[in-house]
């Protein structure tokens, strides 16, 4: 009997939780704010779902009842992606070592 692909995805999910657990514990506390802003940015990879949804509309009716939600989601996720990565960049650029 074949294994349901869902089980594979579940395995990836569970293993990623563990990876996340160990990686995040190694983040230095002084960078916890950039951690939050960068996790914000990467969770906006949800934009891939939004793009598929938006492009599912046909050419006669680009904004149909389902694709319009895709477009709106693209808008929101894009704010987050650009805003999240750039504000993280801006913060990280400020962390400097003592001049010896």
């Amino acid at each position, binding site marked *: 009997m074949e294994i349901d692909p869902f089980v594979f995805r579940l395995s990836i999910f569970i293993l990623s939780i563990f990876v996340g657990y160990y990686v995040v514990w190694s983040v230095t506390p002084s960078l916890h704010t950039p951690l939050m802003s960068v996790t*914000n940015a990467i969770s906006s990879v949800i934009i891939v779902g939004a793009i598929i949804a938006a492009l599912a509309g046909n050419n006669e009716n680009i904004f149909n009842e389902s694709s319009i939600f895709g477009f709106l989601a693209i808008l929101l996720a894009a*704010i987050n992606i650009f*805003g999240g990565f750039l504000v993280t960049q801006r913060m990280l650029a400020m962390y400097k070592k003592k001049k010896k």
Partner: protein
Amino acid sequence: MISTNLLALFYLISGVLFILALRGLSSPETSRQGNFFGILGMLIAVLVTFLSTGNFSTSFIYVIAFLLIGGSFGAFIAFKIPMTAMPELVAGFHSLVGLAAVFVAISAFLNPQAFNLGVSGNIKLASLIEMSIGAAVGAITFSGSIIAFLKLRGLMSGAPITFRGQHILNLLILISIIGLTYFLCATQSSSLFWTLIAISFLVGILLIIPIGGADMPVVISMLNSYSGWAAAGIGFTLENTALIITGALVGSSGAILSYIMCKGMNRSFFSVILGGFGGSDQTNKSDNKEQKPVKSGNSDDAAFLMKNASSVIIVPGYGMAVAQAQHALREMVDTLKKNGIKVSYAIHPVAGRMPGHMNVLLAEANVPYDEVFELEEINNDFANCDVAYVIGANDVTNPVAKTDPQSPIYGMPILDVEKAKSVLFVKRSLSPGYAGVDNDLFYRENTLMLFADAKKMTEDIIKSF
């Protein structure tokens, strides 16, 4: 066009790059490279998605347009936002992730063919469950973050809002969400789907309103976690590895931060969620307090004490952020260092309104990060330091947490500020902190209260030198 297998591999690469992005944050030196990996991962994910749809018609131009409009708005905010407003910015961003998850779920529900999830009215059972979870968690994240944003921005009172039967109501609603999901799967009815989303919005609001201002670091971390689980839920629906990996990473990241914040306050996660802490019972506490003598001084006294010290520890808190005093503080420290005085900064895990809040503000004011220490690293040094300069912190320095088992903050790890030879405490009045507890430190022999705005006092001290 690009094959499904190749597509999945590219998403895997994105996922790995996101892991590296978080890994980079283990030290400030590697962090910038980490952020670059994150951007690269995002770029790959978006590009291969475009290739996979193979749709470069008029719709595609609109997609790019929406992307650029949102992107420029996001970039504009990122460059304009003052560092003191970071907590509300992050809360705002969380709400967007939540809402985006809801929109994607709605879109998938209305047009399941686009995602290979079956046909409308007959969506695959597993997909429908995943979709419901993604939509519900996304909606909770959205409305919860909006409330957190309003509280942090000061547009809504930070005081907890509680009413009778609140917890029972929340419990009933959570049960009804599970029931709704069940019936939704049985009937595939779209009205149930809309009801589910509407109720989840309501839960988000109800969950966050009873939580007080001082617990905001936990709330923000928790919502961070929720936004991850929402993304993971959608990832399962869309069978997308990048989303599943990212969702799991973000979900566990937020959960760990919540844990660290709860530990920093010696409170259980459960008691924070139940809320009602802080702000409500201040009055009856101060009534039975006898008037105790307090020593207060001015900027000249403070300048004198610090100039004659050989080591000074700065303890910043939320008040520093409110007064925007970080730049003045750095100037003051520069003067001290010129006089050969050793200066370091001590940061409590829950200082400020979000994890790491103080570190970012100090970094903004050009304070080198190797002068900034966490509680465990520096707590023993207070005994050997001449002056502790407490600026905008309160509860995290209260020695009562170590001595009085009756106190609501008993057991909370605190900075041992009282062990310093002298303590300079900048505060506008003797009012208690967010926990509603009077600070014992105010009445100590070695404490000198400096009643003023944090920024003004620091500037005055610079003048007095």
